[in-house]
């Protein structure tokens, strides 16, 4: 007794091209690889003196952040500028919706400004999906994080990081450590890792922060860091929010660090050439020791620079998918 459309397909055109980027779930290996390949090519343009490419010239991109974020928003802004788009930053967290305007009203007002793309971050899971279903055809939605659901551009920049530093994702053992329950990053990573052929995805943390249903997504659960890190190729540490203690999910930061914080000693359990990643911003001494964060195996800062290239790639692909769909629509209308 169902009537819903497949949520993972809302982001695709009829011929399977990306037209929004909402989640890594349900995207084919070919499509994920296309994103990575395109991002790779943008990394080389970024190393040039003139960094701009004209793929989004004349387009207006609106950064619609209902939650505060400095880094993600800045990398989206840079990505849009390097694609030659006009960019408008709206800090909704402090403006319209706090005056009682609904999400729908905000959207319609922005559409009236003839925007071509919204980059959306929102505290509610499914918000980007909801907006994608409501906007005028032709407008692309890029999910910059919705609740606990998805953060697909972060996941793809992590995939790019793994691919560039480990050669490929196929056959790799990846350990994701920390607050899995609240992590949209972990969910998006797991979907992408699975599709891209990782050998094993382990999620590590206490039962209060690791839902047992993670096994349904294809991850194995470890409560013990020693076993979880053993022979891992990639160790991804997640940020621990302070409010987890007041929510009675954890007793204290110090006990957490003792059990799940990444130290040089614990990192030795992973493969010798394992890389350490973190979506940032890091809490030194809470989930990761400074010596590890700044150590040789850490690729945390590389992740940030790859972020711009990955965002350029999905923005360009979604805009092009929208354009081809609109062209087909027009041809159909004229026929």
């Amino acid at each position, binding site marked *: *007794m*169902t*009537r*819903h*459309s497949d949520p993972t397909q809302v982001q695709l055109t009829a011929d399977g091209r990306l037209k929004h980027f909402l989640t890594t779930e349900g995207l084919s290996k070919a499509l994920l690889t296309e994103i990575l390949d395109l991002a790779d090519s943008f990394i080389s343009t970024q190393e040039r003196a003139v960094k701009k490419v004209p793929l989004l010239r004349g387009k207006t991109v609106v950064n619609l952040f209902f939650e505060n974020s400095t880094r993600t928003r800045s990398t989206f802004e840079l990505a849009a500028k390097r694609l030659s788009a006009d960019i408008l930053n709206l800090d909704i967290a402090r403006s319209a919706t706090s005056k009682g305007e609904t999400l729908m009203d905000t959207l319609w007002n922005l559409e009236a400004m003839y925007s071509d793309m919204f980059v959306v971050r929102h505290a509610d899971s499914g918000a980007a999906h909801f907006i994608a279903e*409501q906007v005028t055809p032709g407008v692309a939605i890029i999910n910059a994080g919705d*609740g606990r659901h998805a953060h697909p551009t972060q996941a793809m920049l992590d995939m790019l990081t793994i691919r560039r530093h480990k050669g490929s994702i196929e056959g790799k053992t990846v350990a994701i450590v920390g607050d899995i329950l609240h992590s949209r990053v972990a969910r998006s990573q797991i979907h992408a890792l699975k599709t891209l052929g990782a050998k094993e995805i382990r999620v590590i943390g206490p039962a209060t922060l690791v*839902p047992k249903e993670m096994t349904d997504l294809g991850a194995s659960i470890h409560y013990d860091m020693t076993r979880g890190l053993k022979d891992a190729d990639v160790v991804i540490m997640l940020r621990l929010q302070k409010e987890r203690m007041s929510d009675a999910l954890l007793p204290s930061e110090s006990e957490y660090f003792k059990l799940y914080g990444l130290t040089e000693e614990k990192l030795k359990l992973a493969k010798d050439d394992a890389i350490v990643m973190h979506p940032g911003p890091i809490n030194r001494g809470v989930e990761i020791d400074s010596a590890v964060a700044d150590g040789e195996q850490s690729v945390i800062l590389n992740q940030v620079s790859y972020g711009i290239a990955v965002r350029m790639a999905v923005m360009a692909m979604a805009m092009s998918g929208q354009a081809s769909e609109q062209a087909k629509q027009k041809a159909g209308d004229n026929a």
Partner: protein
Amino acid sequence: MSTLTLTHAQLLDPSQELNQLSDVVIENGLITAITAAGQSSSEHDEFNTKNALLIPALIDLSAQVSNVACETLAAAKGGISILCAQPSSKSFIDTPAGVSLIQQASAAASNSQLLPLGALTQALSGDQLANMHSLKQAGCIALSNARAPIKNALVLRRIMEYAATHDILIMLTAEDVDLSANGKMHEGPTANRLGLTGIAEVAETASLAQQLLLIELTGCRAHFSQLSCGRSVEMIRNAQAQGLAVSADVAIANLMFTDVDVNGFDSTFNVQPPLRSEDDRKALLAGVNDGTLAICSNHQPKDIAAKKAPFAAAESGMSIIDSWLSMMLTLVKNKELELRALIHASSILPARILGLTQGVQVGQKANLVVVDQAAEVCYQEETLLSSGKNSPVLGIDLVGEVKLTIAEGREIYRV
């Protein structure tokens, strides 16, 4: 003197073990004769049912009604003779004056009868008892706090003791709001995948266990509204076997849908209690089929803006009243629900719980519905009579079209 003869009806009334092709004669609202089909004289107004099903009219134990005229009209077309109006945070009755307002509005609308359920606690606060006896005297058939929590177990005990003193039927829900805090849907694989906060089964079962123990202690008559877990059905069966005066119902949505239906973040499926697993759905169906559970609509009409938001930000609730009977008949067609269980659960048992007489019997006032159980129906926003267009079955093929509804001897709907 008005006489109406319903001819060639498949009369089905499990309360009297009736299942026969019959003619039913109604004079001045009273059933005066039930004969084998084709044997009644037809000199009066005749309604040829053409072998349609004739069953006792439905009684809905749980619906929210903001616009009385609108919702009772939808109910009349849906084969419902009586609607129990659950309080809501926006509209609750905690004074006798409020009771008579609803009664007047219901009489003025002249469709399905609306029975007001008074509040158990003042302004549904959960901490101070409403004037329970006065509300009963004023005509409240039962008292309910809807889904507003009564967190303090001592207050709950006092409510039950006071209800037992005055033989007041109380309607309760089972939800530990600390355990379900911020929850938006059933805790399970779908909630985890979508990143929505889950409501664990134990939020219902722990609360139910505590309340059953208090009912045992106080000896009150209690009805649990909208149970959602398979485990809860088992607990109700055990309590009944133990001799407690408890009954329970399940919302039709929980018999038809599961948490998997939330997949597309469709806010229509944001409902309390949440849609649970397929195992729960099956156990709830079994509870209806064996006569343990009643079925309610849990109708909650919402305006468009309330639902046009991301899943977690949308208001919970579904608009059901138009399609309640069709949804149940579709479960019958799918062989998940037995037809006699449907009638028992949506008419006979609710009447028994409320202390009303129900049944198609000579000498009784007519409370019946004629429904073509094979007719295909497909609801669209425009065809819903309810003010709420937040129906989960828009565009879905269902079966069962009501041809005639008679409540308290009064014809309130004819196709």
